């Protein structure tokens, strides 16, 4: 039985492992955390249909089987390629011989401490979208540090995205729709609250996203102000004063809010650099995510034969796209193991020329 190493047991890793095992391969998942599921352990409800992340995780876990072996609290310490086989050493000294490697190391959320001017880690009532998600998941109420219901909340888009000063020039794709989703969820919990989203551009690219945005505007009366937050200041009562330019009016604007929620973007996961080095993979200079062999036709293959990528380790993407990639990469790996050839786009183009 051919054996596949999956690095990262989040959504992409789990879905691909299940599909690969169903195709008749054995799979070893290496997960650095103490449980499988990745971000599904942290998120509450998923856009666009409010599917509870817990339900999706449960569905994935229910399909794990005896052909999938998960190694938790584990890291790869070395990988050696021998002809078509990879000799893998895992922390703790375990050795594995595998025929293909799938990298599904996902992403981390941007460290909001780096945007010091927004006051995260300095002002008590500034939190991140990831923290709000955990509060909602645990059935908790959104409260200020003094235990009061916030009357007015400012949601800040593009925190650590599209920002040279934060070192990330790319768009993280999911934060705009996350802001709209969370704004609606806050209004459901606190119908009296006023919510303001401060944005540069709104990117409602996905199917139904625009409808959710319009619902937020009309049904939930969420207000959208085009202007990037310059600075947040803390008032003596712990509320925050925000200063932006209302760019559509062309006037500076200041507003006091009880809480600020920062829509933190996606960055490559912390250990992806280690994986890059031991697998000799390429990452893009402008974002640090893994580069595919070709952006169109080989988006799930790397330049290294037998090493594949799927999910957010190759750039910000929605969970829907991550799951689709995990399914697609399973077929790609099966094809590779069948022929044991890894066609690159250049090889294909050369054949076409002949």
């Amino acid at each position: 039985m051919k054996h596949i190493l999956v690095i990262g047991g989040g959504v992409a890793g789990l879905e691909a492992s299940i599909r690969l095992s169903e195709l008749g391969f054995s799979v070893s998942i290496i997960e650095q955390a103490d449980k499988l599921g990745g971000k599904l352990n942290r998120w509450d409800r998923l856009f666009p249909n409010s599917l509870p992340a817990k339900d999706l995780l449960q569905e994935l876990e229910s399909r794990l089987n005896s052909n999938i072996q998960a190694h938790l609290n584990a890291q790869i310490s070395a990988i050696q390629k021998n002809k078509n086989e990879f000799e893998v050493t895992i922390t703790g000294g375990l050795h594995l011989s595998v025929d293909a490697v799938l990298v599904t190391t996902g992403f981390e959320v941007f460290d909001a401490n780096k945007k010091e001017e927004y006051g995260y880690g300095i002002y008590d009532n500034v939190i991140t979208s990831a923290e709000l998600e955990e509060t909602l998941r645990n059935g908790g109420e959104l409260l200020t540090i003094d235990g009061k219901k916030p009357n007015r909340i400012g949601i800040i888009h593009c925190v650590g995205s599209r920002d040279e000063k934060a070192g990330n020039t790319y768009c993280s794709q999911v934060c705009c729709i996350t802001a709209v989703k969370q704004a609606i969820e806050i209004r459901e919990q606190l119908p009296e609250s006023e919510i303001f989203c401060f944005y540069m551009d709104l990117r409602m690219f996905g199917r139904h996203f625009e409808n959710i945005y319009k619902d937020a505007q009309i049904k939930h009366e969420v207000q959208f102000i085009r202007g990037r937050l310059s600075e947040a200041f803390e008032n003596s009562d712990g509320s925050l004063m925000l200063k932006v330019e209302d760019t559509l009016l062309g006037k500076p604007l200041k507003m006091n809010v009880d809480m600020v929620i920062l829509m933190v973007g996606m960055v490559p996961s912390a250990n992806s650099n280690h994986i890059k080095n031991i697998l000799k993979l390429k990452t893009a200079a402008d974002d640090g995510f893994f580069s595919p062999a070709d952006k169109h036709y080989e988006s799930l293959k790397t330049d290294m034969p037998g090493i594949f990528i799927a999910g957010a380790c190759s750039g910000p993407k929605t969970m829907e796209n991550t799951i689709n990639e995990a399914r697609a990469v399973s077929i790609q790996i099966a094809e590779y193991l069948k022929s044991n050839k890894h066609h690159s786009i250049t090889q294909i183009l050369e054949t076409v020329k002949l």
Partner: protein
Amino acid sequence: MKDFGYTINRDRQIDYDALPRDVYHQLKKMEPSVNACISCGTCAATCTAGQFTDFSLRRYILLLRRGDNSEVIKNIDKCMLCGKCMLACPMGVNTRNVIQSIQLIINKL
């Protein structure tokens, strides 16, 4: 007054907490579709009044949302209620009724 050779400019900043939003509040009750406005400017681009005056519904909706009402009160009657903006609005805002509602609200003020 003695001329000291300098002037002080008025603060241009919108102080959100200091402004009254009662007009917009009434407006969104009378015409809830106004909430869907994304300030694209199609209404203002198609507006005949806007060609000859500084009438801009896009701007007036924004000003009312902020509570900066004086410019709107001064100019809202420049609209001839032709309704072209309503045909053009991509978000389905009933712009003609928005303007009429603003007129009704401010005439009561």
